């Protein structure tokens, strides 16, 4: 391999490890009690980074990793120390991250001060630690749990000395069975952790009946299960998967070619009548869909990829302001198209920075008003049929309508009569260009990234941004991004010779004119008892009516004909071409001009 390739591999692998490391550190924050397997995972990753860095001659990066590794060993032996060390570890990891960036750009090592600080911090620990390599190795060996049986017990939450119950259980089990490992271990129990669960790994298949009798014998414990150990943890799963590195461009090329193929296929498929659909064509279609499915999965990455940066950002911003803020991440295993995640990174960073800066109160204030001293920002990833949503919620002071109005007036952003503004319209003023306060500019070091740009990015992706806020309670910002690369089933109808598409998920039914009573004056059509609002009531020549549902109501649109029903790819209408909010996306079929897709939510 060429030296440059090693370099590239080294950089990208360290970065992969850093992503996982941040994810694990984040778990520590969430769980409160440290899972042995998290520490082990971190330990292993620092160990790997150290090895790679030293091989590449990056001795100082290696030294950083080495110190972190030793720090972890100490934490493993003294689980409670994790909280005092967490920050030091994060700083160390940040430094590694920054130095890898430097190394990539050819800038020499720049984190000597961090190195000496951490070194100083860990110095005292080192003496106590007296790290024994054999000990570490035995830990490594111990953790290979494959082929073992996992016995799972719960400890009664009301138990006053849960650690002792777990300890008694461990003793009881080890008298009868060969215990290879347990979580928590005896040592951890003696350090005073309060276990909720205890998992014991034994060599031979245990007798469940006997395990059940331990409930009575020991008391305050409950037998949950006993089964052959299999890896459930996602991270462990990943470790077993083999990866191959492919430049993203190649995947793009593949999906673009598939896009073209899909257009062609749809056209061909549509040209066939039902009789000519022989089994071979059906098989072909089935296989085709499968390939598309796989191709889509090639493009996605877990949302957790973006999380580390956000955590670091939260903590750094909070620290610089003397605040205590925790970032809680929910459902970050959601797979999201890489291009979506990439484009949302900056906007999310800005939103979070804002939340820490403006939303979360000072420590003193939080105490005074009876809030937890640690402010909380939650980031939640979710998806439904149409959208990926990312919700950022803080438990801070919320937005003051009056203040927003004042700022907007001062900056001359208001041309409307203030009294006419509705509550949510006032909140939306923060998205107006020029609204951002001076402080924001300072904070983002003049990058000029404001909420207006956040909204633009989201709009450019065909999405939407919503804001809600309650004074004293907090603010919630929701980014809604439509799947850009998802296949969608649509119905294409013709109105006055023009084609329009409707997402099939919104289409309730298609009615013939003869089956309904139409009241053009009253702008509705009636089917049985049901009255449905007719949108294009002026178009009296319509032959069919597409009835769509959204937001719990129905609307009908009169059309001349239905020309296509099937799966196709949606493309976003570029922002500059957007003339109204009813149309966010379009479909492209070969040989015809793009067909706009109605955003039915906006029609109702």
């Amino acid at each position, binding site marked *: 391999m060429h030296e440059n390739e090693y370099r590239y591999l080294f950089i990208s692998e360290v970065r992969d490890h850093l992503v996982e490391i941040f994810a694990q550190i984040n778990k520590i924050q969430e769980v409160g009690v440290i899972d042995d397997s998290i520490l082990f995972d971190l330990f292993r990753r620092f160990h790997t980074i150290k090895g790679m860095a030293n091989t590449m001659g990056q001795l100082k990066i290696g030294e950083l990793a080495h110190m972190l590794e030793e720090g972890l060993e100490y934490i493993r032996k003294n689980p409670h120390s994790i909280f005092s060390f967490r920050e030091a570890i994060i700083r160390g990891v940040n430094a590694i991250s920054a130095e890898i960036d430097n190394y990539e750009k050819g800038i020499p090592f720049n984190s000597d001060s961090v190195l000496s600080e951490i070194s100083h911090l860990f110095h005292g620990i080192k003496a106590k630690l007296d790290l024994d390599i054999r000990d570490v190795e035995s830990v490594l060996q111990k953790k290979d749990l494959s082929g073992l049986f996992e016995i799972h017990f719960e400890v009664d939450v009301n138990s*006053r*000395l849960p*650690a*002792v119950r777990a300890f*008694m259980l461990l*003793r009881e089990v080890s008298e009868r069975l060969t215990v290879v490992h347990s979580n928590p271990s*005896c040592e951890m*129990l003696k350090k*005073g952790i309060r276990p909720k669960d205890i998992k014991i790994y034994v060599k031979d298949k245990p007798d469940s009946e006997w395990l059940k009798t331990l409930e009575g014998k020991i008391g305050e414990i409950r037998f949950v299960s006993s089964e052959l150990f299999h890896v459930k943890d996602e991270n462990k799963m990943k470790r077993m998967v083999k990866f191959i590195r492919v430049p993203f461009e190649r995947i793009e090329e593949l999906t673009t070619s598939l896009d073209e193929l899909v257009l062609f296929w749809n056209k061909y498929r549509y040209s066939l009548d039902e009789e000519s659909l022989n089994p071979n064509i059906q098989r072909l279609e089935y296989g085709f869909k499968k390939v598309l499915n796989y191709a889509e999965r090639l493009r996605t990455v877990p949302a957790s990829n973006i999380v580390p940066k956000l955590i670091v950002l939260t903590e750094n911003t909070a620290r610089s302001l003397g605040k205590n803020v925790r970032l809680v991440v929910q459902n970050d295993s959601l797979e999201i198209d890489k291009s979506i995640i990439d484009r949302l990174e900056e906007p999310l960073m800005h939103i979070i920075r804002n939340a820490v800066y403006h939303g979360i109160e000072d420590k003193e204030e939080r105490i005074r008003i009876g809030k937890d001293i640690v402010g909380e920002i939650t980031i939640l990833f979710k998806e439904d049929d149409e959208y990926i949503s990312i919700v950022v919620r803080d438990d801070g002071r919320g937005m003051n309508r009056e203040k927003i109005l004042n700022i907007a007036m001062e900056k001359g952003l208001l041309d409307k009569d203030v009294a006419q503004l509705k509550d949510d319209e006032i909140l939306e003023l923060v998205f107006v260009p020029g609204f951002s306060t001076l402080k924001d500019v300072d904070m983002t070091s003049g990058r000029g990234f404001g909420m207006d740009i956040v909204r633009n990015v989201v709009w450019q992706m065909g999405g939407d941004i919503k804001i809600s806020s309650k004074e004293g309670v907090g603010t919630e910002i929701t980014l809604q991004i439509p799947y850009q690369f998802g296949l969608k089933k649509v119905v294409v109808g013709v109105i006055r010779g023009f084609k329009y598409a409707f997402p099939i998920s919104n289409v309730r039914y298609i009615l013939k004119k003869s089956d309904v009573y139409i009241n053009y004056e009253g702008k509705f059509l009636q089917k049985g008892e049901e009255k449905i609002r007719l949108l294009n009531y002026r178009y009296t020549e319509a032959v069919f009516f597409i009835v769509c549902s959204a937001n719990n109501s129905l609307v009908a649109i009169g059309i001349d004909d239905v020309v296509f029903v099937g799966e196709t790819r949606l493309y976003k209408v570029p922002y500059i071409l957007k003339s109204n909010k009813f149309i966010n996306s379009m479909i492209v079929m070969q040989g015809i001009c793009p067909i706009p897709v109605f955003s039915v939510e906006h029609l109702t």
Partner: protein
Amino acid sequence: MPKRVLIVDDAVFMRGLIRDAFSSPDFEVVGEASNGIEGVEKFKELKPDIIIMDIVMPFKSGIEATREIRQLSGSVIIIMCSALGQETLVMEAIEAGANDFIVKPFKKDEVITVVSKFIK
């Protein structure tokens, strides 16, 4: 026949409380001791079925006493009497041979519940 109980605790108050807990025809408190050394002596002398043993006591701790008594008898039921926050000591006591523990402050029936686990 009632089970014979020995109470080992340096606090008179605690001994009284434990004695009260055993005021049932199924049990008979046959003796009391106020430290570990005395506890071991009383055990040899009285051969009780059950010992309620404090952990922290002068001259000889409950853990030491438990270790010695366990060597003399495999069948005597030893219940440690612990305070909150003494997890590590209780674990040591269990390693030394104690059967179970109760946590101060306790209700009378808790003592009987724990002891009953070991009486067939």
